[in-house]
């Protein structure tokens, strides 16, 4: 049996032309490539930090 109020939640009002500007501005444009770039960037930082730590340890040993 269909519950009208519950079913009504499946519907959303359509966007009107007056809202077009907001629709474009507020659109989240983050994609998988952005995420991959973020991962790469964070990985590079970690590598750099680890390299720095390793170099420091080597110098201490000397």
């Amino acid at each position, binding site marked *: 049996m269909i519950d*009208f109020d519950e079913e009504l939640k499946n519907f959303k*009002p*359509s966007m*009107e032309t007056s809202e077009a500007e907001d*629709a*474009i501005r507020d659109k989240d444009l983050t994609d998988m490539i952005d995420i991959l*770039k973020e991962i790469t960037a964070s990985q590079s930082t970690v590598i750099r930090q680890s390299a720095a730590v390793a170099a420091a340890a080597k110098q201490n040993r000397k």
Partner: protein
Amino acid sequence: MEKCFNCGNPIGEDERTCRFCGANQRAYRMIMASSEKAYNDGLAKARDHDISGAIESLNRSVRFNKRNTKARDLLGLVYLRYGEPVLALREWVIAKNFDPDDELANRYLDSASSNPGAFEKIDTAAKKFNTAYKYARAKAFDLAALELKNVVRENPDMVKARQLLALIYMQEGEYSKAYSELKAAKEDDENNPLTVRYLKEVRSHLVSGKKKKKKKTDRRSTVSINDGHDVVMMPRQSFIEALDNSKSGLFNILIGIAIGILAFVFLVSPTMKQRENEETRKALITANSTTASSKSDAADLKKQITSLQNKLDKYEGKSDVKGSYENLIKAQQQATGDKADLDAARKTLKEANKKLLGTSGKDLYKSLTAQIDQQTLTTKYDEGKNAFRQRDYDKAIDALKTVVKIDDTYDNGEAVYELAQSYEYKGDTKNALKYYQKVAKDYAQFYRGRSSARKVQQLQQAQQNQQAQTNG
């Protein structure tokens, strides 16, 4: 030569990571391939009228790679078809932003701006859908259904409008209407999960409704006979079925004839009689109305005759146009000169018809009348006075009456006073009183008025005395 997506340095085709920045090139290639795959998937679904599936795939494609402008262009088109013009515009604008040379996006945007009528129609439908949605939330189902019908008429491809309309129909228990809307929605968007679910629900209701009907029919078609031992079930037959099943054709024919005769006697014959009566009544009414109109015509003609007679009476004894002018000239001649005859001039002037004269003719008529009156006043007044002095009261009365008739204030009321005196001396107390009273009233402040008042008193006293003597 490929370039690293992160730092832009050149990399080999089989390199898994960038030598310069360490970016994972394999993951990048997988993301790009997934985006392309989702685009192809979306394209196939759009071709198969699976709009909601296409939207899902294309959105996935641009989530992998936001710069996939092919996917964005197609997503815009699919949104437009789905009745979401603003979302369509959004996708095209973003696509153009990423790739200013994107021909498709440019073309769609140009088309939206150069053909605003079509785009506005879709936008109006979207606005109406929003209104209907509000009505539906407020449980104003009639208004919502009305609005949604308009939406569907303006944009038949707007699937969600059909779905909401179907939902309202289901809520109202109108499952067949809901079914037709959902069927139309399914044609536009083949695998829409909401449409599929609603269709399933509607079908189940329609099937259960049919089963109930069938049960009722079955119950009606059997009859049970209890003969004391066994219950015999046999099919129920209607009267017509019984007739059809009876083998006696002659019986049927006889019944048919009897029904025909009865129908003629009770239905056709009274109608025919009624029609005849109606025609007679109409003829009578027409005859009566004709007589009445003849009578009224005769009355109108009589009125016209009376009116014309009245007009004719006015002209009797008067001259025509030509005669009126001749009389006018004649009266002028009679009133002027050494041998002026004012009475004759007055008579001649009376014979002229003033109404037939032109403006200048009327002016001459007026001036001539005034001139004759003035001359008459002078002549008759002198004549009256002389006659009074010579005690010829009849002549005096005749002359002075003419004066008073023309101007009853002539010579400051002296003419009226002398007329009253003439009557008094003649012995006509009644007329004398009449004119004395007039002078007494009109000239009460003057000598003639006061003396007239005294005369009135004297004459009235004399009359009373005379009456008393007669009575005594």
